[in-house]
């Protein structure tokens, strides 16, 4: 029986096949998956914000792209993934409400996506698929059997990236 591991907002989970890791209802948040296709080990991180250095100190580093990713990377490697084989997929980063004068915080989705890409690049992890932007929410999951990253929406259908 394959496990379904749930990840809440500002959190991450790691695991191995046959588990699937899922996170529900991402808006401006981003779901970043790491996966080693050979070891079938991976993780899913649900970040809220791009940059911990622009925020007050927090008890929860998984809230930010810059502090959350290194943490998840460490745990994925500890489970036995090979760093050189790791690939990333990202989805989310929508702007849910359309405002005429969108302030910085309204554009947080875009900033989240940019930060996720930059930090993955800094960590030298390749992004092999991405589904970001738009104005709609997403539920994302990664199947650790094959690395398929599923993106579900309310009225834009469901896709695998």
């Amino acid at each position, binding site marked *: 029986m394959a496990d379904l591991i749930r990840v*809440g*907002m*500002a*959190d991450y989970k790691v695991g191995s096949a046959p588990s699937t890791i899922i996170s*529900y*209802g*991402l*808006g*401006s*948040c981003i779901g970043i998956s790491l996966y080693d296709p050979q070891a079938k080990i991976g993780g899913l991180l649900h970040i*809220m*914000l791009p940059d911990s250095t*622009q*925020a*007050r100190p*927090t*008890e*929860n580093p998984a*809230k930010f792209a810059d502090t959350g990713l290194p943490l998840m990377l460490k745990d994925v490697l500890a489970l036995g993934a090979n760093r050189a084989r790791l690939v990333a997929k990202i989805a989310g980063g*929508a702007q*849910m*409400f*359309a*405002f*005429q004068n969108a302030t910085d*915080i*309204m554009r*947080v*989705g875009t900033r989240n996506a940019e930060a996720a890409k930059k930090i993955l690049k800094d960590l030298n992890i390749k992004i092999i698929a991405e589904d970001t932007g738009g*104005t*709609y*929410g*997403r*539920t994302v999951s990664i199947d650790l059997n094959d690395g398929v990253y599923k993106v579900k929406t*309310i009225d834009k259908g469901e896709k695998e990236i």
Partner: protein
Amino acid sequence: MTDELNLSANQLDALREIGNVGAGNSATALSQVINRRIDMNVPKVSMVPLEVVPDLVGGPDAVVVGIFMRVYGKAPSNILFLLPQKSAFYLVDTLMGKPRGQTTSLDFMDESALMEIGNILSGAYLNAFFTFTQITMLPSIPALAMDMAGALLNVVLAQLGQMGDRALVIETEFLSEDDGINGQFFLVPDPGSLETIIHAVGVE
């Protein structure tokens, strides 16, 4: 640090009372607009970890209609009025004088009508808020979206997330039993606004 602010029982009571009067005003206004009896529960005032907030609205993937308003003034805040999809459709039926069940998606007019409801609710609410605190607060033009509750909450939570790990949530549920309409009204002050509000209330 505001995030660490511990509210006394009296302060929570004071906030609850403000919420109560605010929501009472809103319920009356809504009731007059749709000409139906609107009930409300006693507001819940809680300081909750950000990641728990989506669970307050039936889980992060429940489909809801959200009407969002940014509140400007001395105590900047956010207002989010969330209706389960079905409730929003029934409310549109009522507003537009259509038979119940006829609305199955939202067109431009429907959205506009729902945003107006958001305006009316928040205006009534903030008026009561002013009576208690003498803090003038003005809501922005509403924005509306229909999507997963978690995704809509992101807007508010991301903002709070920059300042801390917890949110003060003043939540009221509205209910029109006969029409099967219910909704949740959230007032979420920015972290820095909390002290202003508490100070204005004058309760130790």
